[in-house]
């Protein structure tokens, strides 16, 4: 059996290999996680009976996905970022985007990691340069955080701020890890908070169920 020091050396060696592959880069890990949560939104929509097509800003269907590394404007045409077109029969069409800005209650644009909004609102913003969708149009706004350690407490304050600027009922806090104090604060304010959102983990299942409920409510109201 190797000694603890030998194990530490071996662990560092393997980690070095992964760092060489681009792993353990906070920005890339967050980007990947946002794409994952976006894919859960898509799965929830399909489970609720929607047809989903992946499109670029010119509305051309695509199979390869292209996402932003940092939040931008829904109206940007180049690069051709991908969104999911979600169609429930007989209902207004929706779109699911990653990393776009949304105009909050204060009329200031905020970065939103994963957003579902009506296609009509998206079209209005796309026809003009740099218009941002309004918070009142959102069906889902998910704030995604990928952390290596437990969640820093400040994230609960940041999310509460987002809930205040959007409609709290549309906001979801999706994270890969957990922290009792963060969960406690968000539970106190009745926020949607899903921890341990990972493939094959209960958090992903619960989040998909929460998104499904949002889509069901959308169908009932439209």
């Amino acid at each position, binding site marked *: 059996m190797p000694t603890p020091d030998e194990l530490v050396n071996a662990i560092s060696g393997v980690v070095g290999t*992964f760092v060489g592959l681009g792993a353990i880069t906070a920005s890339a890990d967050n980007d990947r996680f946002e794409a*994952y949560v976006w894919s859960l939104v898509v799965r929830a929509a399909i489970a609720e009976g929607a047809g989903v097509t992946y499109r670029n800003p010119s509305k051309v269907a695509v199979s390869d996905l292209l996402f932003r590394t940092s939040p931008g404007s829904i109206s940007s045409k180049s690069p051709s970022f991908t969104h999911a077109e979600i169609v429930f029969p007989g209902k207004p069409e929706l779109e699911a985007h990653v990393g776009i800005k949304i105009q909050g209650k204060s009329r200031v644009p905020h970065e939103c990691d994963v957003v579902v909004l009506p296609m009509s609102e998206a079209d209005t913003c796309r026809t003009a340069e740099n218009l941002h969708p309004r918070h009142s149009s959102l069906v889902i706004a998910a704030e995604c955080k990928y952390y290596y350690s437990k969640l820093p407490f400040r994230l609960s304050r940041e999310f509460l701020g987002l809930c205040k600027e959007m409609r709290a009922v549309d906001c979801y806090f999706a994270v890969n890890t957990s922290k009792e104090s963060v969960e406690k604060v968000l539970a106190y304010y009745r926020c949607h908070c899903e921890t341990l959102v990972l493939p094959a983990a209960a958090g992903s299942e619960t989040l998909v169920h929460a998104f499904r409920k949002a889509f069901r409510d959308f169908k009932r109201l439209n």
Partner: protein
Amino acid sequence: MPISEVETRRLFERLATQLREAGASTLVDQVIDEIAQGKQIVYKTVTRRRGARQLQRPEADEFYVERGRGREYAETLDYSAHERLDLLLEALERAVLDAQQIESDLLKHYPKVRFVPEQQEENVRSFELSGLAKHEREAERLRTLIADLRTQTEG
């Protein structure tokens, strides 16, 4: 038998230093921040001293209102040396194993996923999913090494 507190602290320092040298400073920084934040909050009821009077604070909310004879205070607990080392090992699992799992899941549903900056002048590099998913064997080796280290330190 679990190794001593002092020895666990030394292993933490050694692993943290080596991870920084390997280019995983962000991971170590996050763990250090968590250690500084403390483990959890517990609530202790402190009996009111006889004759002590509460100051008038009209702006105070319900949590500052004394109930009965006791007052409730929040206390943050510190992580032990073993818990600190475990935080570092858990962080490694999330950084490599969980990230790989997410990537594999995405690639199961979508043939190609790329990330690029919206503005060319952004100092962010583009990347494509596939780098992690191909390295199952290295990930499995890391999983085994972490499990072995846990066994040795926890006894």
